[in-house]
């Protein structure tokens, strides 16, 4: 659906995007994970046709996206990083304005506005000025304003902001829309959001995509640092003999720590414990996270 090839974007001396390539397929919930200044918003703005790249190509359904061709981005919706609403106007007036820009009007526009307001639980506040809304309500309206014209591809640039209040409402709405066929590109610097929502994730930093894939694919790229812990005692003693040679075993404060060899399969571990009649609750494991992956790839943390 969306194809980005070798895109470079500079602001004067700053190279905000440094050869970005990626493809987003229909129906994907694509996450763009990276810290502030990574180039997420810049990439969004290029896709939305707000700017032109200095080099590279962007196409939507095979048609080149450009700042001078509004028709090419008709099937596209943008949720800007800031709350892009007219705060003197009511929720309804905002939606009416944005809908009218897409050529919607009359009964159709009214019906879509009703539907949108209902979807974000703002129906009873529809006539109130946006400036009287809480941050979370504004975020919800900011999101739904980009859906009025029923785009195929929705660009969400950190749509939850720093305000956790409406996070779940936003997540649920987006997940429902994706189930109904919407394609989403979702940028965030919260690994929890990317982990929960996204079917595929690109890790971006300093204008470069450092890794691209499903959550599992990405985590596989971490050197296998899984560690399984279980209490020392007579129950578990037989297990120690069977694990010998399969990895590294240490004991500290009455807890055994097992670091498996790289080619060791977790399923083998559980076959052993089952045959010994050991309950699963004895074992805890430390799964790697995107945060750890980011640190591994860039030497920095996401919060920097």
């Amino acid at each position, binding site marked *: 659906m969306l194809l980005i090839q070798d895109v470079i974007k500079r*602001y004067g001396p700053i190279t905000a995007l440094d050869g970005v390539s990626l493809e987003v397929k229909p129906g994907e919930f694509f996450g763009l994970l990276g810290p502030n200044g990574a180039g997420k918003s810049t990439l969004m*703005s290029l896709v*939305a*046709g*707000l*700017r032109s790249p200095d080099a590279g190509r962007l196409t939507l359904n095979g048609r080149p996206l450009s700042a001078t061709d*509004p*028709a090419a*981005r*008709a099937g*596209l*919706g*943008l949720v*800007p*990083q*800031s*709350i*892009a*609403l*007219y*705060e*003197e*106007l*009511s929720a309804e*007036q905002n939606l009416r*304005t*944005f809908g*009218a*820009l*897409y*050529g919607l009007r009359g009964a159709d526009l009214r019906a879509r506005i009703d539907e949108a307001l209902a979807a974000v639980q703002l129906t009873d506040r529809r006539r109130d*000025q946006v400036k009287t809304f809480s941050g979370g309500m504004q975020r919800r309206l900011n999101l739904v*304003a*980009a859906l009025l*014209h029923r785009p195929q591809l929705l*660009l969400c640039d950190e749509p939850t902001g720093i305000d956790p209040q409406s996070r779940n409402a936003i997540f649920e709405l987006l997940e429902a829309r994706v189930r109904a066929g919407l394609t989403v590109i979702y940028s965030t610097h919260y690994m929890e959001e990317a982990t929960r929502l996204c079917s595929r994730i690109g890790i971006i930093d300093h204008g470069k995509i450092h890794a691209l894939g499903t959550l599992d694919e990405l985590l596989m790229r971490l050197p296998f640092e899984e560690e399984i812990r279980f209490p020392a005692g007579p129950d578990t003693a037989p297990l120690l003999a069977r694990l010998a040679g399969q990895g590294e075993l240490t004991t500290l404060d009455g807890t055994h720590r097992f670091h498996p060899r790289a080619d060791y399969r977790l399923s083998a571990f559980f076959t052993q414990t089952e045959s010994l009649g050991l309950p699963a609750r004895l074992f805890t494991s430390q799964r790697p996270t995107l945060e750890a992956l980011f640190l591994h790839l860039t030497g920095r943390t996401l919060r920097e």
Partner: protein
Amino acid sequence: MRIILTLLQKDFARLVRDKAALSLTFIVPFALIYLFGQVFGVNRTDTGPSGIPLAVVNESDNPAAAKLLAALQGEKAFFVVTKFVNPDKSMRPLTETDLRPMMKANNFRFALVIPRDLIRDDEFGLHLKILSNPRNEIETQTVHGILQKTIFANVPQLLGQSLQARAKKTLGSPKLAAFNSSIAGTVAKTFGGDPAAIQRDLERGDFGLGDADDGTPAPAGGQRGADFFAQLVKIDNEQVIGRDVKAPAATHIVGGWAMQFLLFAVSASAAALFHEKEHGLFQRLLSAPATRAHILWSKFLYGVLLGLVQLVVLFAAGRILYGIDVEHHLPFLMLVCVFAAAACTAFGMLLAAVSPSPEAARGLATFCILIMSAVGGAWFPVSFMPEFIQRISKLTLVYWSMEGFDQVLWANASFIELLPTLGILGGITAAVMAVAVWRFNRGPLFD
């Protein structure tokens, strides 16, 4: 066009829901016109002290001097002070020694001394002394001009006396008596009258030209009591333009105030472009089918309409408060208002286009508007300004807008007569907008 109208509608909806902006549009202009009118005394009807304070010390016992004083007191432009008020509230006539300290204390800035030797025999003319503490050139010129007019118009007899005194000194008494007698004889022979009486008048400096108040019949052809100057130079005074204008002072200046107010209002609304940018609204609009051109032209249209509304309110205030005749000129007045509002809006947009931030835009606007208003004639008439400033005036949109208002309200101009002014305003608008749009496209606003 649909997109521009949508954006325009949005801006008006915002205006309607913004109480502060609304009152700025409709109430403040009214208040401002009222206040300015009070400050500048437009159509003042109260009878309180008015005119420029002028102290007069009369040391002469010449009856003509008393007449001069009376004439000055009758002059509207002056508020004549002749008495010194003692601390116990009793009064005595001012003396010349009072004048300087009182001027230093700012009791008045102009004083006239009529000395004992009002008429000397060693020179022609009157000997008067004017003391001044000029605050500005225009006031000084005005005071001197009115003084001269009053003196010459009201007491030409003094000049006759001066002439006689001088003649006596150069010719000597017997020769002057012979001269006077022969003139009197000739006058009596030609126009009739008593030669002895005429000679007496001549010796008193009364050439029958002025305001002689004894019963002497004036020579034929000379009109008794007529203005000396009116006889020397006959001026038929005809006001060609603006004769029927109902509120002349207000008509001339309301346009200037209106322009200044409009400039502030419109550049504030252009600076609001930054607000929309900062809130990411341009991203939203531009990712929708709107383009930069749509945004800019909708803002321009909005500015013009808002400006038009504001000018209408301002002139309505002028109509209600000062009786400016608006209704008889409505179509052309609206036409000039549209062009003036367009030029102002273009100016506001240029400021927003060249400024890196809304603060910078506001600062720059204040600076430019004040300069342009002063130079363009919104504060006082351009014709009072030095030549080179008058030339600069013609580069400002304030000048041409005021010119347009004047043409309509004052000179009752026809459409053809109005066309050049509208053309210039239109030209200014087009040129300024061209630069603004060009700057917007490379400036930070859409980045």
